[in-house]
């Protein structure tokens, strides 16, 4: 009988069954990378299903959590109907897009918010020793089950309350991917600060909480310097605000800006990680991933 412990690491689970295919050289092998990501996600999902009660509990816990926040905004807008042109539907859109994006960036790429801890703990050695793209392997080695609840919440909210015509569904899906790319790039970049700072776990957590907070409050609240920060250093604008504007009134230039920023932030994250990786020194830590 196959034990669940045998399946708790992507590397461990995949190495035995398809090592040759998955250990293909990295450069220029996009299809191989995609297959690797697909296989890793499937295995992670299977791991989650092994602990079914926990899986369901985490997903529905997060769904309930997000729903409570929506209740706050429903209560708020019942009492004060319009906030400088921003209504309840706009806030629902922000939450839907943030949830869907978060579900991808943190749910599927479950180590994205653990990078600082992994670097500081010397656990990167494990990924360096294997012939896979280090960052990609690191990101897909874990799935955050609770964050999948966010994804479900985002899509559920959109499909139930936000006029899901076929065109809008496609646009929502594309914007959710852009939102996820921005989150992922940001998380990789701030997590990689651990290469320079050592223990950056607290800082990463604060910055991550910050970007999510800025993403889930109405745009009219932010002006001047803060708005400038949301466009650049903490790019929350492109996680939910810009997608909300696009779903409100489609604008090709706005979509191009969103796509461009998603690509740019993700690129910055990858560049920062590999720059930092040059500074990484093995702690000779023996990591057992069973």
């Amino acid at each position, binding site marked *: 009988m196959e034990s669940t412990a045998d399946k708790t690491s992507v590397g461990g689970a995949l190495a035995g069954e398809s090592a040759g295919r998955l250990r293909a050289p990295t450069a220029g092998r996009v299809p191989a990378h995609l297959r690797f990501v697909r296989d890793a996600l499937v295995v992670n999902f299977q791991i989650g299903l092994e602990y079914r009660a926990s899986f369901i509990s985490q997903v529905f*816990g997060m769904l309930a959590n997000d729903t409570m926040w929506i209740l706050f905004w429903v209560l708020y807008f019942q009492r004060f109907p319009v*906030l400088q042109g921003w209504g309840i539907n706009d806030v629902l859109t922000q939450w839907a897009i943030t949830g869907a994006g978060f579900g991808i960036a943190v749910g599927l790429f479950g180590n994205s918010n653990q990078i600082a801890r992994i670097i500081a703990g010397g656990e990167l050695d494990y990924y360096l020793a294997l012939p896979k793209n280090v960052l990609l392997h690191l990101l897909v080695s874990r799935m955050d089950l*609770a964050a999948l609840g966010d994804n479900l919440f985002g899509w559920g909210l959109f499909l139930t309350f936000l006029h899901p015509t076929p065109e809008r569904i496609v646009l929502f899906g594309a914007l959710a991917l852009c939102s996820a790319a921005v989150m992922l790039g940001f998380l990789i970049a701030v997590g990689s600060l651990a290469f320079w700072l050592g223990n950056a776990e607290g*800082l990463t957590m604060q910055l991550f909480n910050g970007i999510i907070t*800025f993403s889930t409050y109405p745009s009219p*609240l932010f002006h001047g310097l803060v708005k400038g920060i949301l466009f650049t250093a903490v790019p929350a604008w492109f996680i939910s605000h810009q997608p909300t504007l696009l779903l409100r009134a489609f604008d090709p230039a706005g979509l191009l800006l969103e796509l461009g920023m998603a690509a740019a932030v993700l690129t910055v994250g990858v560049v920062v990680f590999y720059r930092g990786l040059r500074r990484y020194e093995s702690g000779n830590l023996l990591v057992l991933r069973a």
Partner: protein
Amino acid sequence: MTIDVLRARGSWGARLGKYGAVLRMSVANNIAYAGETVLRGLFLILLIYVFVQLWHTTYGVLGVPTLGGFDVAHMVWYFAFAEAIIMSSPRSWGKIDREVKSGDLAYRLNKPYSYLGYLAAEDTGERLVRFVLNLAIGSVICLLLVGPIPISPPALLTTLPLLAGAWALDFLGSCLVGLLAFWVEDTFAFTFIYNRLVLLLGGTLLPLNLFPEPIRGVVEWLPFGAMVYGPARNLVLFDPVFFGAMCIRQAVTIAVLLTFAGLVFRAGTRQVNLNGG
């Protein structure tokens, strides 16, 4: 000396002294990690900033100086105090959940103290340090962003017992969630729901008297308001009648939850199987 003498319970002073020692130990432990608490508290700066913007915009749009008795400054101070309470919660449910799952609970049960009493003392120590630090951070930010508000000595003095009552209620609520670990595989979902209920129905984000009817009538009867809204409102908008009513509400709710937690704990520990070795 007979075995009965050894097993006899000490005086009330001696019994309370044990928990006092645990509380002091917990305070010392948490002071040692104060830096981490301060770092976590930085998130409070961001939250207060966002809420200052939210309320400034709301009051501006409505063109009114006060809402439910709160002007902008009072509203922001209310939020900072309420958030300090929320962010100081030590998540006792997590400790119980871990100890039940790992079996460490069995090790604790044969110690000469009440398990829940020990946790309460530990919880209070942690909460105390975190609350003082979070309140200090929140107060500095409020002073910078909206300036001071007048807080009378009676408001300050009467808020202390309400704060103690709020902590007791949150501890008991948190325990009840953690004790579910005796029966369910994962208490994660219950924890999330409990925390959000305290945040939303406790009145952290929106004072309960601003909730639209008929929801307001319902939430005022729930225990969550006594955990956050009660002490926070008492501090910024002191009213002796409100204080009296809140004291009674807290006392009744604590009595009910304490009884309930005791019963659940007894029922749960009956399921513990000890295997020597």
